């Protein structure tokens, strides 16, 4: 009997202890939650997150952020996160009610955060979007509401190595369509050099790099297996098959593809505005990516958006908007965009950049024909489609499937993914 009782007591004790611990754990969670609101409501200090951890507290960017805070009468606490970490960080912060006052985030993530209900619209926060080019602003527009303003835009173009083209007797101006480009690649191969590098990796970078060819054929993201899309993927696949592009493009990121170009054995590299300085150093020049049958192919926009996350204390939005307006004022944004290798999102900004550096004209032209990936009102449908697109690109590049079959599977998977 006593043994029985003591066993019972022990069981009850264990249960109580377990419940107690769980309750303590939950209490810990909830107290964390309530502490957050007071943190974001701290007087005079505004939090600011950006994806530029490379800029330290003494950098020009950090000084500009601080000075805009001073002008708005507050102190800014700036934190720089790695781009990929920032999305998760922003979601976690929103979950805990600890969102920063201002969040500078990669443009395709805006739709994800907006869908999560973590961002305010410009109608709520009072940001002005009037003079911003519509095609750059598009990444921040979801169902007619705008969720932020772009800091600037970067995009893709074709860099070329003039020495190799001269040796292969290829004139850059002759490259006006896919056929002329492929003919140039053949000539380059004939002199023992590699034709072109790009990033065909199975991540968002792969989709970003494939889009100029996809859109350049006239394909649409809502229809991944159209004949136009198949033509674009066939172009890339044949380049690899014919030895115009190294096999490593299947795995290359934009950085590793660029490193291969830098070695000096490759004639062309599809790469971004951010390689401008490095290209100038090696004497590389630039042409627009051609459309299938001539003309310039639409290119995807890259770059971040200033957003104002949802706060419990809505009175903070006005000051946040003041800070963002200061940061995106023409004189400031031109300095910032020159540092970040971005093209300004406004005409006035672009003119100021062009006056200071005439070599930017090709990039400004490229940005004019650029499209937002999440545009065409795709918003959060884009990530689902994009994932299927880069999977199809990988399958075709590696020979696991034909371009047509890979794209048909991708379209079916995207449809299934969007309907679930």
């Amino acid at each position: 009997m006593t043994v029985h009782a003591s066993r019972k007591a022990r069981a009850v004790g264990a249960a109580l202890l377990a419940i107690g611990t769980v309750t303590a754990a939950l209490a810990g969670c909830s107290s964390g939650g309530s502490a957050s609101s007071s943190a974001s409501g701290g007087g005079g200090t505004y939090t600011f997150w950006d994806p530029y951890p490379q800029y330290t507290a003494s950098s020009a960017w950090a000084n500009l952020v601080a000075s805009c805070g001073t002008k708005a009468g507050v102190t800014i606490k700036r934190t720089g996160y790695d781009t990929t970490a920032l999305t998760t960080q922003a979601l976690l912060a929103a979950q805990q009610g600890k969102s920063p006052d201002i969040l500078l985030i990669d443009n395709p993530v805006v739709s994800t955060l907006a869908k999560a209900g973590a961002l305010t619209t410009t109608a709520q926060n009072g940001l002005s979007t009037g003079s911003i080019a519509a095609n750059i602003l598009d990444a921040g527009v979801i169902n007619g509401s705008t969720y932020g303003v772009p800091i600037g835009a970067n995009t893709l173009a074709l860099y070329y190595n003039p020495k190799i083209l001269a040796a292969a007797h290829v004139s850059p101006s002759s490259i006006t369509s896919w056929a002329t480009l492929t003919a140039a690649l053949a000539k380059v191969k004939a002199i023992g050099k590699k034709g072109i590098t790009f990033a065909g990796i199975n991540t968002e970078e792969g989709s970003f790099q494939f889009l100029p060819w996809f859109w350049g054929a006239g394909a649409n993201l809502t229809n991944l297996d159209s004949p136009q899309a198949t033509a674009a993927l066939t172009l890339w696949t044949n380049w690899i098959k014919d030895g115009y592009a190294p096999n490593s493009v299947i795995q290359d990121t934009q950085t590793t593809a660029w490193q291969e170009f830098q070695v000096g054995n490759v004639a062309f590299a599809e790469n971004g505005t951010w390689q401008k300085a490095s290209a100038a150093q090696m004497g590389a020049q630039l042409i627009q990516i051609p459309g299938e049958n001539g003309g310039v192919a639409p290119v995807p926009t890259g770059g971040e958006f200033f957003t104002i996350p949802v706060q419990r204390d809505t009175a903070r939005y006005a000051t946040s908007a003041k800070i963002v307006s200061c940061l995106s004022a023409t004189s400031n944004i031109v300095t910032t965009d020159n540092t970040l290798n971005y093209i300004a999102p406004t005409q006035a900004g672009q003119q100021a950049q062009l006056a200071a550096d005439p070599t930017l004209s090709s990039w400004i032209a490229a940005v004019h024909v650029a499209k937002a990936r999440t545009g065409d009102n795709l918003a959060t449908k884009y990530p689902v489609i994009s994932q299927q697109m880069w999977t199809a690109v990988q399958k075709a590049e590696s020979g696991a499937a034909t371009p047509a079959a890979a794209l048909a599977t991708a379209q079916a998977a995207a449809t299934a993914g969007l309907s679930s």
Partner: protein
Amino acid sequence: MKAITQERSRIRKTATRHRDGAALAAPSRGAPGSRARRTLRSTQWAAWAFIAPVVAYLVLFYAYPLYRNIDLSIRSYTVASFISGDAPFAGFANYSAIISNPTFAPALINTAIFVFASIALQFAIGLALAVFFHRNFRLAGILRALFLVPWLLPLLVSASTWSWMLNSDSGIVNAFLGALGIGPVDWLTSPTWSLAATTIANVWIGIPFNLVIMYSGLQSISGDVLEAASIDGAGGWQRFWRITFPLLRPVSAITLLLGFVYTLKVFDIIWIMTRGGPATSSTTLAIWSYQLSFGSLLPDFSSAAAVGNVLIIIAVLFALIYIRARHRLEGT
């Protein structure tokens, strides 16, 4: 025999005397019941206090995350629910969705091939090396230490080095094959070779672990047994298969189980070398789970949790097989 019986009865008598002594001594101390109960209660409290940190630790860091992972996998958890906390109950819908997903079958097959090929090769090579080093020849210590290098290197370094060595155009492996007159192999960029390439790298990384454990297992086998077998005329091969290998069985079992769990969750090597590609040719369940939750711009946490739970179930199944086998081994 008689002596033992006598000794036993002596011990029993002494024990009874002690017990009686304690029983007799208790009343002389006065107020026996309440004090004894108090002592009992305080001892119990002390016992609870001692186990409380362990229980708290287990609940906080093991039970709760596991519960959350299961909870996540049976709900429809979107980015919106991340913030609102409102995720509708979905039952097993996420599980049936991942099972009918075209990536599931290749991921499961790749996981099986990767795990079994890795373990078989790691174990065989590790055991062979352990037997080799057991002879204790000159420089054996230094050579053995060199074999531990892969274990000491950060996985990021090992995997990056392997991916450079296996590069199609400029890798040292293809340069070597070229010198032998064999055409270049697209180790990381062809669907035929990518899984093999990651498995080779993983085997290289896993050999030291098997070597160390099997080597210490060999140390515990008495030389006398092998010597006796040798006198009875057993050759080297027979001594290994009839004596060394069976005696190593308990060590082998735990090495294989640990190797299984480690390999099942391998993520970094594959992610760095191929990112699970090209297409899904080197995608394992662990890689797929990561891709679902962090690989795209729109995280799908519920499906990722479901894939993660499938991995846990597989690991638990094999752990149960191990426990059963162990019981059977102990029973015999």
